């Protein structure tokens, strides 16, 4: 038995002794708590993730899905990617959690408890697509610095909460407001308490949208700790880093928010296109706003072998940042020909959309199925890598799977 297990068990039984009753869910609770405290390397149990999820980084935790794990229309927690910039906060006390609205452009600085937020403001539920700005980074050439996400840093879960707009308006927004910036309870990797691991935000126009939520529920339950319990900003369609986790303060700024990972090259791409590998000055980098049009084939899993003469059913999801996907196509001949396939309307704005098709193959052999979505402005996914950028963001090149017909 490891020492920490021993300590945990004895702590648990002594707690039980003190309160004279068994602690319901006590073992679960303490296990998660203890494991997080030491950043123990069994993430699948700790975060309740599918064993097929890929761990890119264990300090800080960064874990992505594989395409076939994202088959559900609403992504379950087990398949949701984890992206952290710092260390997961410990010992969160939701009862005493507060959210403060401050900043140069707030009329009255206000602090709310979670109960205040839940009782004072109307609650809304939306399915919202959150994709990491660096999803697909591993394909860039020359390689870009950072976690080498492949295809699985995207999800569309159901989020329940209150509108950020309602809270901001309750505190009052001055006319000179430009941006909001969030502040959170996570800890900087260096352990320096004065540093914030990440403090990003969004312009007022995004902050005031109906679908921009301060969420306390994910898929109908309390948000899991790793995804931002007890309060998360959720801004669908934008880089998921805008959707700050463990949020305890939001500043209404009179300028573009200048928190950690808002400046320099973070979550920015060259304002004007550059050649692969070209050096770009910080001042020539622009903040990413809406994510580009993209799609993913979630069934079947790549590598399927089928019998000649049978048709293959495929399905997946498509999304387009702030926009909608208006057209969905697939190709089995590397883009020489494309066939349209049905794409469902989104359940609500900023939710991903579902496509499906039944494919017949002309003869035996090796095939790749490529999927291509087009947004309402007529912009489609490229088959090759899109414009190179120093940090490897916004790779929305077509997703493909391998199939053999025998």
């Amino acid at each position, binding site marked *: *038995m*490891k*020492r920490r297990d*021993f300590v945990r068990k*004895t702590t648990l*039984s*002594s707690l*039980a*002794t003190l309160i004279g009753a068994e602690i319901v869910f006590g073992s679960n609770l303490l296990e998660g708590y203890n494991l997080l405290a030491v950043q123990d390397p069994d993430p699948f149990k700790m975060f309740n993730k599918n064993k097929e999820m890929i*761990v*890119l*980084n*264990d*300090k*800080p935790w960064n874990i992505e899905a594989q395409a076939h794990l994202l088959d559900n229309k609403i992504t379950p927690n087990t398949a949701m990617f984890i992206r952290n910039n710092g260390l997961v906060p410990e010992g969160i006390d939701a009862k005493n959690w507060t959210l403060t609205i401050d900043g140069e452009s707030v009329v009255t600085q206000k602090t709310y408890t979670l109960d205040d937020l839940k009782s004072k403001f109307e609650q809304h539920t939306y399915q919202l697509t959150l994709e990491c700005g660096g999803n697909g980074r591993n*394909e*860039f*050439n*020359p*390689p870009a*610095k*950072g*976690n*080498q996400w492949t295809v699985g840093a995207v999800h569309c879960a159901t989020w329940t909460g209150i509108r950020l707009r309602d809270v901001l308006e309750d505190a009052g927004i001055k006319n000179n407001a430009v941006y909001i910036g969030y502040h959170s309870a996570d800890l900087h*990797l*260096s352990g*320096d308490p004065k*540093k914030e691991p990440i403090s990003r935000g969004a312009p007022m126009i995004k902050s005031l949208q109906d679908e921009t939520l301060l969420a306390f529920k994910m898929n109908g339950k309390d948000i899991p700790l790793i995804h931002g319990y007890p309060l998360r900003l959720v801004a669908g369609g934008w880089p998921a880093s805008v959707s700050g986790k463990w949020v305890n303060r939001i500043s209404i700024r009179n300028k573009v928010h200048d928190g950690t990972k808002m400046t320099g090259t973070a979550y920015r791409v060259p304002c004007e296109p550059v050649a692969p590998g070209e050096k770009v000055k910080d001042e020539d980098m622009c903040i990413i706003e809406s994510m580009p049009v993209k799609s993913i084939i979630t069934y*079947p*899993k*790549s*590598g*399927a*072998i*089928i*019998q000649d003469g*049978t*048709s*293959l*059913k495929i399905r997946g999801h498509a999304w387009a940042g702030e926009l909608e996907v208006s057209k969905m196509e697939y190709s089995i001949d590397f883009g020489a020909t494309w066939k349209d396939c049905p794409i469902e309307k989104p359940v609500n704005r900023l939710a991903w959309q579902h496509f499906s098709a039944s494919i017949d193959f002309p003869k035996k052999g090796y095939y*790749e199925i490529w999927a291509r979505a087009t947004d309402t402005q007529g912009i489609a996914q490229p*088959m*090759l*890598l899109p414009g190179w950028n120093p940090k490897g963001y916004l790779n929305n*090149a077509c997703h*493909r*799977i*391998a199939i*053999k017909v025998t």
Partner: protein
Amino acid sequence: MTKEEEFKKFAKKLYHLMALIFSIFMVAGGAMIYYNYDPNFSVFKNNTETLVITPEEIDENLIENGIHVRTGLVEGSGLMAVVNNCTNCHSAKLVTQNRMSAERWNETIKWMQETQNLWDLGDNQEIIVNYLVTNYPVTEKGRRENLTNIEWYDLEN
């Protein structure tokens, strides 16, 4: 013996009796609470539970099949400089995922020093960067790679 003395004596006896009962309760109670903590009374035996901890630490720098086990880094000249300077704040996985030229590693180190509290690496910087570009070289990927590592399986329709 006056009645008063008799009463005092009686009270004293009663006091002793109560003290005795109280201490018995205290000892028994203490034992019971302890039992809850540690049903095996392991403190009174040779405690095996706490003795088992040490193996985790002796393997710190174990290298197996050319891999530094604790971090997953490839064995090579400069390995320990990388382990000691680059795996304190973040995982070695963040290092090995990346493929950069010496110039870009040096820029990255500068960025970590300016924003992430990384210390001055001194002479180790060259050793570290050499290790990285030697063992984790940049690979040419072109504009789109072939699909690789496909796990083939029969799909039942």
